[in-house]
């Protein structure tokens, strides 16, 4: 419960935060604080400095730039749910955010923090893979764009360098009649997934013209099931095709055994979640 001592900094701009991050030894960025503070309270993490990003207004908000929806990294989960722009252009995100944690946590936890944490149990990483998101990372050398596909390297490990800040999430607006679903199996409301599947789907002439399948908490990092996607592309979405895609997705999984279940159970549930998400997404393509 009692975190170790640290020095606290509250910069007012991204540039100031990057400066602090580069000059302070052993510093961590404090966003919503609903992963970092819990780890500090259990002394899993003991940074010497916390750099609080909550007073940088430029890191919040959701806006449209042409065909791209841009979300500030410090946008809290409840603001994703309430956003009319996301509901219209990226409806998977507000719908799935309702399945993350609980109301209080969603008032503090941010989309950027959920992504940057790199926890395979978090929901946003797979959602970002399914939505073809790109992340803007800013460091002392400037900005760079990194695709979600390739960003998640391992448990708590991402492409984010130690001197960089994830500043925004860029998502292509979904074309009309894009189907989507996030099927999440969990022990209770507010828990991390035992298994979950994010699907984005478009059909053309009865055949799959675009499909993304990404999985949560079924490997050391969020996983894109590329072989399952390839098997569906250009095919009618028959029961057999859905079952075959689920089998391919399961083959890509490598879940850890824990109190949520053993490998066998999690693999079976992975297949079930992929099938459910594909069916729900298909029903929404009409």
């Amino acid at each position: 419960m009692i975190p170790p001592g640290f020095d606290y900094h509250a910069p007012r701009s991204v540039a100031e935060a990057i400066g602090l991050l580069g000059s302070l030894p052993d510093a961590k960025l404090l966003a919503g604080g609903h992963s970092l503070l819990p780890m500090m309270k259990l002394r899993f993490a003991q940074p010497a400095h916390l750099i609080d990003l909550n007073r940088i207004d430029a890191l919040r908000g959701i806006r449209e730039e042409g065909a791209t929806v841009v979300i500030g990294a410090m946008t809290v989960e409840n603001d994703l749910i309430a956003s009319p722009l996301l509901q219209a252009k990226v409806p998977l995100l507000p719908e799935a955010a309702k399945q993350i944690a609980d109301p209080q946590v969603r008032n503090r936890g941010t989309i950027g923090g959920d992504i940057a944490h790199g926890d395979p149990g978090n929901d946003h990483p797979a959602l970002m893979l399914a939505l073809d998101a790109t992340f803007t990372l800013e460091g002392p050398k400037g900005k760079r764009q990194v695709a979600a596909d390739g960003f998640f390297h391992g448990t708590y490990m991402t492409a984010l360098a130690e001197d960089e800040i994830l500043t925004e999430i860029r998502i292509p607006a979904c074309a009309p009649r894009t189907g989507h679903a996030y099927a999440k199996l969990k022990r209770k409301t507010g828990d991390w997934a035992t298994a979950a599947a994010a699907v984005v789907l478009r059909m053309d002439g009865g055949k799959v013209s675009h499909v993304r399948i990404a999985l949560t908490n079924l490997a050391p990092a969020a996983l894109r099931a590329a072989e399952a996607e390839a098997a569906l592309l250009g095919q009618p979405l028959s029961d057999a095709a859905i079952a075959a895609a689920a089998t391919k997705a399961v083959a890509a999984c490598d879940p850890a055994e824990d109190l949520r279940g053993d490998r066998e159970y999690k693999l079976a549930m992975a297949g079930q979640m992929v099938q459910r998400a594909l069916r729900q997404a298909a029903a929404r393509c009409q």
Partner: protein
Amino acid sequence: MGKKLVTVKVNGRTVEKAVEPRQLLVHFLREECSLTGAHIGCETSHCGACTVDIDGKSVKSCTHLAVQCEGSEVLTVEGLAQGGVLHAVQEGFYKEHGLQCGFCTPGMLMRAYRFLQENPNPTEDEVRAGMSGNLCRCTGYQNIVKAVLYAAAKLQATAKEAA
């Protein structure tokens, strides 16, 4: 590890104190402000017994630093009643037997207070989802749902009278 001066409005009263950055808001409220209504039921941010209202949002004060509250307005359960008259959520929990040991109650009340502003006319399912960040060991939730619905009806009736 130097202390930081924090000025925060708690239940309408300005509090200025030097705090250690690592001090959790719940400890600041309980130990520095003697506002011991907010409770601590876990160390993993699940139970919501520490829920308070910060700048119009329900927050678990065990997962927020006091130093982060610089310039914020915080409302705790001690600030709910006005002039000795219970707030509708307090009356609802009392009338509908929505508490037994009372340990979760301050957090439940603070959450219900904000939830009914977010959703003034909720269904039972919406109440259960809206209160899902608050655990209770005693009630089985059933009467808490009734209490929140009682408060919703009372607040709506009051609003209608005022209009």
